[in-house]
């Protein structure tokens, strides 16, 4: 008793009870299951982002040099000037994604069965691929095909080199907005380049459906342009023409709502008023434009010119108003304003960076700018200059020589479009429907056509006919899941890569993306896999691809720039848009090694813009009458040579399908090869997604006529497919038109990414452009009902 009392008394005088009490309090706040981020030195590693084509300079923050914790913008880069987009800010969620493919896999069961993938070594993977390619080569190398990313990089050229040396013409790129611009530049100027827009120096911007702020092909540059337009003094007036009250429309000073896909009609209407009112750059047109007046072809046959076409009664304000849904007065007002503004620029787009445009419409916008004189030297439109990278030339042996007689599969039809381009759709169509020759091996690199190609069922149908499908994806995406082999590439931040030009930018741009971190998994650079396979195949294939590493290959490419002593590296912040065509840019690197060192350190190379040249056309002028269209033409109508409004009618009848479905892109949803990240999922507004249900946007009027209330469960049916969704009633939607966001509805990946909403691509109809053969997407006929 006393002992206990003494013990208690004594204990109370010692730190024991107090320390125990304190410790248990501290212990209760220990949350041992909560991760404790490793500490250490934080360093910054510069690089260049290759997640999209925008070409932004980035820098990664690393802890102890081996753990990346943040991607931020590189202030030294003139394109993004230190900023990043939501996708790049969450880029590390791809690097550390649970759905990455950790090593080469081979499908041992039925395609698409996740449990059937068996891990194999790189040795085995490369041997089996080489063996297949070797076997097929003996039987006819043209039966191998590949689909790669639409992003412009040296990887394209390496693929092309491999295919040339191996002997197959069947190399395709995923569709892009630039495809149509390339066709238009080819037809009107004879240059195989794309048109470039001097957004930053325009004084008035008339945008025909260009989704500048809704996730366009070069988002950082568009954001930079917006910042310059919204300056305090003399802000630049922006006019947005499209059917949806989009973000770009809301940021614009004026929003002109029109029927979907009728932008070109409005442009023709403006051109009509400019021509009839003689309110255009007559000097430029007279001296530099062919086909404006009536023209005579080489056979002496007379043809109608653009002037007589556009000034005809088909494009009066009243006619145009009927097509577009605008008031005739609005058309007149707009034409007057556009014609009178000294630095007015017309830009255009499809509203989606990964969809090509109708070639005739592309030509209409070129014509409108030509009337404005924007294509003259120093004007607001130029041609995207090319970095003088070392050219590749493949050596051919008898096999590749023989197979080069074989036509590319999309062109192997009896009837062909006059100016064929990147004909991925034609190819897929051919493969699935009894082709001229079979495709025995299809490779897919940095692309996910099974999900994000509009009308993605075409890929599925084609893939079924191909005995071996190889994916090089870093991720277990929908296409990888359907593949027989997956040979995972490094993730973008782990590998060497490059950016050749920024889509639509007038200045020359080249940047090397160096890895910020050592590869985390058992992956291999696809470029290096190609090099290994080529050396196994031996002969001219091996000698055409002599490099041992992708870094060596890039060094070789950069040598071309150094040899030409072209352009300069940007080592201090500059206003890149202030450089005009023809301005001298003095090189500031000593040799190729020095240039590569600087590029590897995250600095970018630039060159002055190049003006549009017309010396490659037969007339030596800008050709508004595109004579080459006549080649395979089925019509003898003169209009086929000229820019005109030529909508591709969606299939189905209006009475059966009373509504139109239009897809749109959002800067908060990644809709290309890369899926959304968990960070970006937080950005998706609750008017777009609720749980796993996607919302379809419709106008209150449309909703009232269909008896649909906000949040109702609906079924959407288009001529292509059907899906369940929820209704979001919003005045952003045009009456009679439904809008669906792109990039949702993934079936692969993990619980954070997959099974959210509907994939818009499965509902969209693709129509082949008669001039270029490329797939265009505007609107699809649809029905909507409450369920």
């Amino acid at each position, binding site marked *: 008793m006393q002992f206990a009392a*003494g*013990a208690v*008394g004594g204990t109370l005088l010692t730190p024991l009870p107090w320390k125990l009490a304190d410790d248990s309090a*501290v212990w209760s706040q*220990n949350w041992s299951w909560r991760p404790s981020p490793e500490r250490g030195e934080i360093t910054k590693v510069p690089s260049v982002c290759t997640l999209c084509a925008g070409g932004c300079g980035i820098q990664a923050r690393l802890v102890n040099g081996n753990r990346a914790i943040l991607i931020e913008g590189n202030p030294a880069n003139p394109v993004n000037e230190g900023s990043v987009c939501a996708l790049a800010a969450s880029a590390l969620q791809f690097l550390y994604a649970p759905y990455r493919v950790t090593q080469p896999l081979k499908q041992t069961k039925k395609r698409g069965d996740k449990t059937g993938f068996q891990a194999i070594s790189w040795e085995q993977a490369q041997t089996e691929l080489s063996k297949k390619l070797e076997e097929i080569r003996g039987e006819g190398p043209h039966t191998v095909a590949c689909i790669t990313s639409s992003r412009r990089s040296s990887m394209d050229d390496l693929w092309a080199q491999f295919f040339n040396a191996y002997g197959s013409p069947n190399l395709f790129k995923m569709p892009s907005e630039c495809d149509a611009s390339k066709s238009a530049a080819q037809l009107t100027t004879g240059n195989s380049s794309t048109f470039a827009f001097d957004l930053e120096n325009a004084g008035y911007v008339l945008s025909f459906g260009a989704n500048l702020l809704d996730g366009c092909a070069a988002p950082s540059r568009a954001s930079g342009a917006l910042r310059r337009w919204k300056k305090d003094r003399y802000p630049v007036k922006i006019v947005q023409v499209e059917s949806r009250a989009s973000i770009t429309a809301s940021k614009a000073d004026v929003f002109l709502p029109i029927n979907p896909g009728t932008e070109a009609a409005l442009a023709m209407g403006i051109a009509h008023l400019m021509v009839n009112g003689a309110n255009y750059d007559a000097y430029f047109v007279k001296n530099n434009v062919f086909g404006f007046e009536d023209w005579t072809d080489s056979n002496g046959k007379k043809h109608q010119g653009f002037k007589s076409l556009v000034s005809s009664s088909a494009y009066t304000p009243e006619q145009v108003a009927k097509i577009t849904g605008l008031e005739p007065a609005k058309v007149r007002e707009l034409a007057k304003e556009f014609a009178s503004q000294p630095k007015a620029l017309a830009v255009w787009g499809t509203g989606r960076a990964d969809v090509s445009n109708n070639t005739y419409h592309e030509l209409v916008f070129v014509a409108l700018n030509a009337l404005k004189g924007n294509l003259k030297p120093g004007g607001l439109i130029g041609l995207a200059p090319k970095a003088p990278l070392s050219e590749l030339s493949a050596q051919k042996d008898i096999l590749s020589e023989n197979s080069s007689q074989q036509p590319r599969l999309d062109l192997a039809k009896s009837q062909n479009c006059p100016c064929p381009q990147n004909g991925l759709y034609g190819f897929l169509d051919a493969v699935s429907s009894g082709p001229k020759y079979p495709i025995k091996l299809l490779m897919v690199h940095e692309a996910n056509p099974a999900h994000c190609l509009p009308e993605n069922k075409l890929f599925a149908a084609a893939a079924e006919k191909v005995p071996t499908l190889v994916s090089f994806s870093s991720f277990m995406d929908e296409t990888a899941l359907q593949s027989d082999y997956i040979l995972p590439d490094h993730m973008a931040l782990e590998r060497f890569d490059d950016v050749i030009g920024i889509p639509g930018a007038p200045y020359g741009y080249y940047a090397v993306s160096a890895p910020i971190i050592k590869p985390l998994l058992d992956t291999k650079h696809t470029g290096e896999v190609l090099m290994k396979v080529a050396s196994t195949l031996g002969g001219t294939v091996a000698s055409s691809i002599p490099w041992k590493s992708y870094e060596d290959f890039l060094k070789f490419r950069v040598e071309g720039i150094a040899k030409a002593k072209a352009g300069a590296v940007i080592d201090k912040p500059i206003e890149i848009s202030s450089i005009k065509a023809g301005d001298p840019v003095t090189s500031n690197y000593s040799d190729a090694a020095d240039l590569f060192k600087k590029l590897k350190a995250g600095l970018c190379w630039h060159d002055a813009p190049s003006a549009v040249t017309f010396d490659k056309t037969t007339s030596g002028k800008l050709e508004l009458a595109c004579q080459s269209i006549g080649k395979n033409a089925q019509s003898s109508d003169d209009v086929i040579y000229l820019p005109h409004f030529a909508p591709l009618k969606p299939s189905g009848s209006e009475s059966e399908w009373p509504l139109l479905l239009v897809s749109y892109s959002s800067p908060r949803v990644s809709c290309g090869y890369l899926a959304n990240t968990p960070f970006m999922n937080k950005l998706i507004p609750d008017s777009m997604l609720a749980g796993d249900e996607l919302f379809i946007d419709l106008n209150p009027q449309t909703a009232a006529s269909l008896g649909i209330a906000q949040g109702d469960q609906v079924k959407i049916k288009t001529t292509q497919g059907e899906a369940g969704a929820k209704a979001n009633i919003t005045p952003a939607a045009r009456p009679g038109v439904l809008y669906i966001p792109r990039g949702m509805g993934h079936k692969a990946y993990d619980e954070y990414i997959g099974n959210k909403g509907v994939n818009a691509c499965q509902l969209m109809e693709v129509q082949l452009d008669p001039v270029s053969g490329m797939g265009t997407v505007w609107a699809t006929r649809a029905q909507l009902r409450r369920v």
Partner: protein
Amino acid sequence: MNEEKTSASGKVVGVLLFVLGFAGALVLGYLVFPNLLYSQKLQPLNFSHAAHRDNDCDSCHKFRPDGTYAGIPKISNCKECHESAQGNTEAERILVEEYVAKDREVPWMVYARQPDNVFFSHAPHKGKGVECVTCHRDVTKEEKLPPMREDRITGYSMTTMEMTECEKCHSAKGVSNNCEVCHK
């Protein structure tokens, strides 16, 4: 009488018992308890600060250009002198063979490690003239690293400074005690 006796001797016994219990508790509380509470862990190899007396403290314990403090140096720092063995002690052998040669970091245990929610920067303290020994042990003559004593309940090092200590000094010196000054 008996009762008295008993009670008298009982009292003595009682007092004795009380003293015994009291003393026992003190021994337990002051001597046994700390040894029970704190584990003793040895560092991966011994480091003699005394042997490095010729160097300045900040040739190893330095500030990085971004203002953060590097604390215990990295193996690259050791490598500057210890690319090959500088003597024939066991510690030297372990350092060179296990870490320098293999380019691995030594997993030193930090005596003053603070939890994740604490932000501590040496820069303002040094800038305001606080000496290292105000908070850390004097290592100038230390031949042998002391064992790391870790609280078995909380997992903290015995020498981790507690918040009250920080606060006392801050208020004595008129420095802000606002939460975000020291928490992240």
